[in-house]
C-alpha cells in the first residue's frame, strides 16, 4: 500500500489551473520522479502533499486512508519531510538553529540541548560532505549552501516520506553524488521519495518510477527501466527536442572583459582572465570555490581588495554596479528571489528595473514601452504567465528565472555574466536559452558563464576556467575540456 498518495487532485489559482485530476502513489522504498516543463504544476503538487495548499477537489491518502493537512505542521507530523524549491532559511539564525527550528532537542532539565544539536548536525554534514560552520548565521550563504542546509534539515527528521523539489538545481556533481548516496540509503531503509529535477540524468540515476505532468494534467506514469531520456522529454514537451547544446562557433574578437589579479582576502586570490567578444567562457568549480564571489566583484557588488576589472579597455570603478552597467556589463545573479527579482513587483516592472532609462519618454516612464519590452522577451523565452502585470512571485520557479534572464538580456549588454543561468529551467527552454546565448556570442557579445552543470559547461563553452578554493587553477580550451579534466582541476588534483 502506498505510504502517501494523491487521488484525482485538482487545484486552481484564480484563472490558472495548476493541477487537474492528478493521482500519484508514493511507495515505501521507491523513489518516484515528477517531470514536467516549467509551470507544469510540480511545485503545486509538492505543496499539496506538504499541507501548504489544500486541494480544490480530490484527496490525500496516508497509508490508504484520507487525511486533511491543515498546514505544513500536520504533514510533518505524518512523517513527510520536504525540501522546497526555494530555500526558506531564517537569515538571522545560525545553521544549527535553522535545522532544528521548532523541534529543538531538550536536555533532562528542559533546556535546549545544544550539544545534541551540534552532534547531529555534524553527522548530517559529514554524510553530505558539507564543510560549513554550523554556528554561522544563515545570512550570506550562497544559494547552494542554503540548499545543502535545507537538505540537512529535511534529512534530520525521521521521515517516512521525503519530498525534494529541485534540491540539486544549484549543486555541482560532487554534492549531488553525496546527496544521492544519502537518499539511496534512506530509500533502502524503506523511505518513500518524491524527486523533482530538470536534469534528466539525475532522474534516471535515482528513481524507479516517473510521473509526467503537462499543463497540470498527468500524461504518463512509467517505470524508469522502460523508457529512455528521449521518451521522457517527448512526454514532457509533446514533441522531439532539438539539440540541448546548439553551440555555434564564433570568431573571437577583441578583448571585452579583462580581469586583472582580482583578490578579495579570504574569498578568492589573484584571479586573472580575459573574455573576448564572440566567446563563451565558463567558470567551473565545486560549490564554494569562489566563482560567484568573483563575478560579484566584477560587477561591483562587492569591493575587491586588490586588482582591477577592465571592460572594453577602460578600467571599471570598483564596487559600483551602476558603473559596471554603464560600461556594458550585465549580471544574472544566482539567487533569483533575493537578488534577481522584486517578488511583489509585476513581471513587466521587474524586467524594466535594470533599464529604467530605456523605457522613458522624456522624464516619465512609458507604460507602453515597459510593456513592449517585457512582451518581446516573454515570447522569446516562452514565459508562462497569465498577465504581465501579475506579481512575479506567482510564477513557477523556472519562469521566475526566465524573467531574470529577460531583465538583463533586454539591456543588450556587451559583456553578459550569467551565474547558473538555467537553474530550474526545463529542458525545452534550456535548449532555447543555450541557443540564445550562442547566438548572442556569435553576434559579438562576450559571455562569462558560471555553471555547476558540467554538461552545460562542456556543451556551451569555448574555454573553461576552473576554480579551486578561491584560485584559478586551470584554463582548458574547448577541445581538451572533458568531464575528467574539469573535475580533476576542480577538486585540486591537478594544478595548472
Amino acid at each position: 500500500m502506498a505510504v502517501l498518495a494523491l487521488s484525482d487532485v485538482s487545484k486552481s489559482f484564480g484563472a490558472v489551473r495548476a493541477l487537474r485530476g492528478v493521482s500519484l502513489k508514493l511507495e515505501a522504498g521507491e523513489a518516484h520522479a515528477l517531470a514536467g516543463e516549467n509551470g507544469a504544476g510540480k511545485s503545486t503538487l509538492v505543496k499539496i502533499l506538504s499541507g501548504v495548499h489544500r486541494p480544490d477537489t480530490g484527496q490525500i491518502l496516508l497509508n490508504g486512508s484520507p487525511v486533511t493537512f491543515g498546514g505544513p505542521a500536520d504533514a510533518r507530523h505524518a512523517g513527510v519531510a520536504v525540501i522546497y524549491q526555494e530555500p526558506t532559511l531564517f537569515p538571522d539564525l545560525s545553521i544549527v538553529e535553522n535545522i532544528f527550528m521548532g523541534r529543538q532537542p531538550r536536555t533532562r532539565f528542559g533546556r535546549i540541548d545544544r550539544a545534541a544539536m551540534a552532534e547531529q548536525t555534524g553527522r548530517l554534514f559529514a554524510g553530505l560532505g558539507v564543510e560549513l560552520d554550523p554556528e554561522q548565521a544563515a545570512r550570506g550563504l550562497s544559494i547552494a549552501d542554503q540548499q545543502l542546509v535545507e537538505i540537512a534539515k529535511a534529512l534530520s527528521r525521521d521521515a517516512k516520506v521525503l519530498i525534494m523539489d529541485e534540491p540539486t538545481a544549484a549543486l555541482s556533481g560532487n554534492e549531488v553524488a553525496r546527496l544521492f548516496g544519502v537518499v539511496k540509503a534512506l530509500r533502502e531503509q524503506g523511505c518513500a521519495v518524491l524527486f523533482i529535477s530538470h536534469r534528466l540524468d539525475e532522474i534516471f540515476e535515482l528513481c524507479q518510477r516517473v510521473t509526467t505532468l503537462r499543463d497540470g494534467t498527468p500524461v504518463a506514469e512509467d517505470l524508469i527501466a522502460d523508457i529512455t531520456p528521449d521518451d521522457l522529454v517527448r512526454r514532457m514537451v509533446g514533441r522531439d527536442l532539438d539539440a540541448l547544446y546548439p553551440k555555434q562557433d564564433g570568431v573571437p574578437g577583441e578583448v571585452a572583459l579583462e580581469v586583472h589579479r582580482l583578490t578579495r582576502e579570504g574569498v578568492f586570490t589573484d584571479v586573472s582572465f580575459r573574455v573576448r567578444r564572440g566567446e563563451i567562457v565558463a567558470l567551473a568549480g565545486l560549490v564554494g570555490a569562489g566563482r560567484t564571489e568573483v563575478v560579484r566583484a566584477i560587477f561591483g557588488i562587492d569591493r575587491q581588495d586588490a586588482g582591477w576589472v577592465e571592460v572594453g579597455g577602460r578600467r571599471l570603478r570598483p564596487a559600483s554596479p551602476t558603473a559596471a552597467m554603464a560600461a556594458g556589463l550585465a549580471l544574472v545573479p544566482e539567487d533569483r528571489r533575493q537578488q534577481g527579482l522584486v517578488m511583489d513587483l509585476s513581471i513587466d516592472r521587474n524586467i524594466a528595473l535594470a533599464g529604467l532609462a530605456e523605457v522613458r519618454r522624456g522624464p516619465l516612464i512609458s507604460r507602453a514601452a515597459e510593456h513592449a519590452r517585457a512582451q518581446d522577451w516573454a515570447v522569446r523565452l516562452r514565459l508562462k504567465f497569465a498577465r504581465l502585470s501579475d506579481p512575479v512571485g506567482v510564477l513557477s520557479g523556472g519562469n521566475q528565472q526566465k524573467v531574470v534572464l529577460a531583465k538583463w538580456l533586454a539591456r543588450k549588454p556587451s559583456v553578459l555574466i550569467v551565474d547558473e543561468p538555467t537553474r530550474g529551467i526545463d529542458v525545452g527552454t534550456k535548449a532555447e536559452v543555450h541557443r540564445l546565448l550562442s547566438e548572442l556570442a556569435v553576434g559579438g557579445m562576450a559571455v562569462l558563464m558560471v555553471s555547476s552543470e558540467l554538461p552545460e559547461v562542456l556543451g556551451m563553452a569555448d574555454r573553461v576556467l576552473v576554480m579551486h578554493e578561491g584560485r584559478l587553477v586551470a584554463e582548458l580550451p574547448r577541445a581538451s575540456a572533458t568531464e575528467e579534466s574539469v573535475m580533476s582541476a576542480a577538486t585540486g588534483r591537478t594544478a595548472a
Partner: protein
Amino acid sequence: MLVRRWESLILVLLVGVCVWAALGVDGFANTSNVSFLLLDTTEIALMALTMTFVIVAAEIDLSVASTLGLSCAVLGWLWNAGLGIELIMPICLLVGALCGAINGLLVTRLGLPSLAVTIGTFALYRGLAYVILGDQAVADLPAAYTSLATRPLVPLGLVAVLGVGAAVLLHATGLGRAVFAIGANQEAAFFSGIRVKRIKFWLFVAGGAMAALASLVFTFRYASARADNGVGLELAVVAAVLLGGVSIFGGRGSLPGVLMAVVLLGVVRNALILADVANEVLNFVTGLLLVASVLAPNLGALWRRRFTSQQEVS
C-alpha cells in the same frame, strides 16, 4: 490592485465623514470652516509628501517635527538679529536640508536603522531649537507674509503643486520605481544598478527641507516663531501616511491615498471639535484613528504576507 482598493475605502470614508459632519455638526459645512480645516492640514500634508517616499523606501523619519521646530527657532533668532525675511527663508530651508542630510548620512553611511537614528535626532533637533530661541516667541513678523499664509489659496496651492509633483515623481518616473524597488527588496534593487544609498540619502534631505518649508507656513500662519512649534506633528504625519495605505514594511503605497488620508484626519478632528466633544474624548478618538491607521492597512499586509509566504515556500 489592493492599493487601489484601499484608496477607494479611504475615499468612501472621507465622503461619509463629510456627509455626516455636514448634516449633523453645526458650523461644519460653510466655506470659512472648510477652508480653515484644510488650511490646518497644510504642514502635515507637506511633510506627508516626502514621508511617503521615505516609508515606501522602507525607512522612517521621526525627526521631521523637530526639524520644523528648529527651523522656526532659527527663523525667530535671525529675525531678532535683524536679518531680512527674504534671506532668512532660504537659510531655514538649508537648515532643514542639513538636518535631513545628517539623518541620511547616519542611515546610509553608518548603516544604522532609521528608527533609532531619527528618534535620536528627534530629541537633538528640538533641543537645539530651545538652545537657540529659549522659550521666547518671536511674533513681530512681516504682515505681508503672515497675511499671505492665512489666505487659504496660497498654502493650499503650494500643497497642490507640490502634491502633483510628488505624485508624478513617485508613480511615473524612474526614481519612483527605484524607491518602490528599494522598499520591496533592497538587495535586488542594488543588483539592478539602483543607487540605493544615494537615493535614500536624498530622500532624507528632501524630508528635512520639506519640514523647513512647513515651518515657514506654520510660523507665518500663526504669526509666531517658537521652539516648540509643531510638537507631536511627526505622529500625525506618519499616521496619515500609513492610513493612506503605505506599507510600514515599504514597497507599497500611493500618494493620492496619503493626501486623502491627510484630509480625512483633518475633517474628523475638525468635526469633533465643532461637535463640542470633550478634549479627552477628542484625544482618544484621534489616538484610536492613529492606532487604526497603523493597524488596518498593515494587518492587510500581514495577512497577505503570511498568505504569500506560505505560497512562496517553493
